[in-house]
């Protein structure tokens, strides 16, 4: 475990030997998986922030029972002043709320509302590493393709392992995962950290690409720029233009 954190720290510091070690390691992808588990759990820690409140918030059925009880108490208190005038209507309203509570209770999850909420919010938190990995691998596949087309070497395992570790600075997104008040110092800090994480990640991506792809750093930068231009500017522009023209043609045809 200590080794993991040591390597993680060195990768963040763009240490060439650590990248080389990862490239040669049989378990490079396993290291990347562990990294995603750690980074993802920290980056999504804010999703657990409401768990305590969830445990304290009464369920809808409990609220209905509370209302029924309050009406019943209020009616018996009033009886001392104005007699039994309100007793009959109050009883029927109390009964209605009690029945509502019973019905709502029958809809509740078998494990109970609060327990289920806590279990599911933990499950959602545990999903964060997988969501992050899915986003990263989708973003990295085009980089791999362009790198290979531009003459990069290296095995698939080495390239994937080294490129995946560019997610390492995403731990900085931990703050942004909390529900922060808008236009506050905290939200500005979270935004700044997200910005840093992106550029730090890009630096790791370039360094990793140069090591695993056996290319110099200038070529690695070119690969990343070409990928961004082709996959995130050119292709979407072409798709939008063609789609727009077709839609315009359709509108003309219908008009």
């Amino acid at each position, binding site marked *: 475990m200590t080794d993991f954190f040591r390597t993680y720290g060195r990768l963040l510091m763009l240490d060439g030997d650590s990248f080389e070690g990862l490239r040669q390691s049989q378990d490079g992808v396993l290291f990347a998986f562990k990294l995603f588990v750690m980074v993802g759990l920290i980056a999504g820690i804010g999703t657990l922030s409401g768990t305590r409140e969830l445990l304290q918030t009464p369920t809808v059925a409990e609220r209905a029972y509370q209302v029924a009880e309050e009406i019943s108490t209020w009616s018996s208190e009033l009886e001392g002043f104005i007699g039994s005038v309100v007793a009959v209507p109050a009883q029927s309203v109390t009964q209605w709320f009690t029945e509502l509570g019973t019905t709502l209770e029958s809809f509740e999850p*078998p494990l109970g509302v609060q327990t289920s909420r806590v279990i599911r919010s933990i499950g959602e938190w545990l999903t964060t590493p997988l969501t992050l990995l899915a986003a990263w691998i989708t973003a990295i596949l085009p980089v791999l393709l362009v790198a290979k087309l531009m003459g990069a070497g290296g095995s698939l395992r080495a390239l994937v392992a080294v490129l995946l570790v560019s997610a390492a600075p995403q731990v900085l997104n931990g703050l942004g995962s909390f529900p922060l008040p808008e236009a506050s110092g905290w939200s500005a800090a979270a935004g700044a950290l997200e910005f840093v994480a992106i550029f730090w990640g890009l630096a790791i991506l370039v360094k990793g690409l140069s090591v695993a792809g056996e290319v110099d750093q200038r070529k690695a930068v070119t690969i990343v720029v070409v990928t961004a231009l082709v996959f995130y500017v050119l292709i979407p522009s072409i798709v939008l233009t063609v789609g727009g023209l077709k839609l315009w043609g359709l509108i003309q045809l219908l008009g």
Partner: protein
Amino acid sequence: MAQVTETTSSQHAKPGFLRTSFRQFWQALLLQSEAYQPILQSERPVRQGFRMLTALYLITGLITSLGLIFHYLTLPKVDVIQSQVGELILSSGLYQQWTVEQPALAAVVNLGYRLFWLLAGIRIGYPSRLDIFLTPLSLWAMGLFNWVTFAIFGELIGRKLGGQARRRAFWGALAVANAPQLLTLLNIIPGLVVPSSLLWSWTLLTSYQAVRVTYPQLTWRRSLSTTLAMYALHYFFIFLSIVLGVLLGVLVYSLVL
């Protein structure tokens, strides 16, 4: 004593089928090309691949079923809400009045109501009893179907592009390339969702590696072309079968009427 030692050592020398298979799947998930060697050297790669896939899909299916039970236990009872709200609608004066005036409306409301709850159930991932019981079987059947179609197209294209390997060797390698299915074991945790894009992307990587390992003569470009063409043909034929199915349905319907 000697007999016991011998038995123990033979057990060490020959680990069980499940253990070996899952070790190979784990290696393939970590993109280690060594994972494919045992099945490529196997005398019957199709049979071996079938057994491995059956074990993989039935075990991950059982775990997914267990996960669905946990999902069921932590979600509101959608079926109870559906029946209670349904009763409320059916017994309302407005509905009674409408159905007397327009009897066809009852069928439309009934169908729309059922469809709404079906979609709501899918949206929140509420499992039915049938989902829980049939998941292992449906995963297994879908997994085998995908394996067969991918293997047919992949072997065909790989060979056309100059790949050389023993017949059906690719079938074995492609079975091991189903390794990302291991990630679905995490489905046991309620609220956790394994993104399908992750499964899809990682299977693309393992399938590419299976092509590379089976046909080492192919350049990376040809290996990638084989992998992508295999995917394209698979989805094209699925699309074609849906279109033809609909057309056939329309034809039969028009002939009957």
